[in-house]
């Protein structure tokens, strides 16, 4: 059970993020929800890479030869970088929308119906 805690936490964070995205009306809050989902996925990836008793994959001061394969860390880093790019782009979209519509609320959007 205790070993599964990180996974459970990751799933809870993801679900919270999706709930935020669905229920909130403010665009900034929706993007925050998206960031929560991203954080949850990152936590899940890092948790997958945890090996009990393994050491960091740095040869010079490794205590034992039981090392952790660093793939998930690399994946998480990549995802963080992609996440920054996405969030920056989304926030700049919100800025433009706010300039044009004088509002950042979902209820004032929806001019695309047709």
């Amino acid at each position, binding site marked *: 059970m205790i070993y599964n805690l990180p996974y459970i936490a990751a799933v809870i964070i*993801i679900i919270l993020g*999706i709930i935020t*995205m669905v229920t909130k009306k403010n*665009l900034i809050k*929706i*993007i925050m929800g*998206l960031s929560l*989902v*991203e954080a949850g*996925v990152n936590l*899940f*990836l890092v948790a*997958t890479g945890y090996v009990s008793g393994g050491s960091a994959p740095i040869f010079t001061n490794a205590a034992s030869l039981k090392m952790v*394969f660093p*793939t*998930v860390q690399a*994946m998480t880093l*990549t*995802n963080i970088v*992609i996440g920054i*790019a*996405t969030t920056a*782009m*989304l926030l700049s*979209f*919100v800025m*433009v*929308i706010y*300039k*044009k*519509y004088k509002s950042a609320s979902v209820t004032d*959007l929806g*001019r*695309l119906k*047709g």
Partner: protein
Amino acid sequence: MISDWILQNLPALLLAVPMLGAFATPLFGHVSDSARNTWVMLVSLATLVIAGLLTNEVLINGTLVYTFGAAQPSLAIPADSAGIPFRIIFTVDAMSVFMAISACIVGFAVSLYSITASKKMSGKDSFFALLLLMQVGILGMVCTGDMFNFFVFLEINSLAGAALVASRIDMGVAVEAGLKYAVLSTLGGLLVLFSVGLFYGQYDALNIAVIAQNMQFGMLDKVALVLLLVALAMKSGAVPMHFWTPDAYSMAPSGITAFLVVASQASLYGLFRVLFTLYNVTLDYVTTGWVIIILGVLSMFIGVTMAIPQKDVKRLMSYHAVSQTGYMLLGVGVGLAVLGDETMMNAFGMTAMQGGLFHIINHAMYKGLLFLTAGAIFYQTDTRNLNKLGGLGHDMKWTMLFFVIGALAIAGIPPFNGFESKLMIYESVFMFNPALSVIAMVVSILTLASFVKVFHSMFTGPRLPEYSEVREVPKPMLIAMGILALLVVLFGVFPQPVVDFIVTPAASALVDQSGYIAAVLGGA
């Protein structure tokens, strides 16, 4: 010597050329507009040539495996790695080159079109850089043999696509559409990444072939399958996750819309790759096949019924794009539903798959053509409202001709390409379940009806006074449309060589899971 080197590194060059092109575009933009335009055209043409060479190579020599960073590109498994291919591997099989060549043809036409069509825009340097980056994303998605790499290219594709959708910020609505597209694709991308994590946790591998070989189809794999199915079906615009398509497609500049269609199809490719290569018969193929079939039928029917009342011509065409995606899902879904049954597979399963895949390349051609003609109309009249347009046939004869070709092709009228692929789908699906085939035919008739309406309101009638200044669009735009129209006609008149040459190998490559695994891991 140099040609040997090029031949050896084709899969890497397919991505490296447009990527270099994208990042060098602003540099050439500093020199002059025409320098940048020439550069973009050169890069696009070079990518098309590389895709052609790669297609030739793969169809002659079979699946190509390219390992990045290895001493020999064909060396997928390093000697000291205990059989684990831990490098990033591109696995280019007939299905990949099939998607790549259709993406490159449309990409070339779109860049040619956009160079003239974007004359009135500002920020053209970044526009073309993003256009080429989107091509990188699409080509990467279809060529990669690594799940995480697939996610990265999916994100490149989504980011570039969303930025391009929002590129006309002056009205705000385009940004709204871009935001919608970006939020949904990011969420979809994160779901894909989550399932990649699930795979990695179980099989310690990211390589598609390795995961496919070890696939247990336990609980976690089922969760991963559902997540991938939802995310990729959403990205490809299938009902019930289609709501972003009309917004994004109608608000993007027309050239980009034609390319977004290809981007959606790359997600569709991802979906098929997951179903056929990653899971194959380990999953309950009848149930999953029916899920895909139901998604397809819903997309076909809801897409076309939503399209009929639309007044915005691009919005109408976007709903038709949803509807046409349904045909591809239906064809391939039928193939999946009978995958484990040898006799049914030979009787009609293969034909259904070929029809579905043939429809992908046909759809890229005629839908691209239709969006480009809609863009040509918008370029000259500044409106997309069908109630305001009229009488354009007098002055825009070529555009009208291209529109008619595209409209007849999408409605499945011979001798255009849409007819050939739809016929294959009708015939094979009829043997599987006649009701599905009837629905598909009804949808085709409704499609024809709505395009007759569009044709009437745009081109026929007397010359309207407000469009007295309207002339034919500039030549490069006409040539771009002409390339696609020519292909639509050629594929329709000579379908058999096309089917034999690229579609059948693609369908066979897709169902042949063991061949895919063997190509990467060696052995039987």
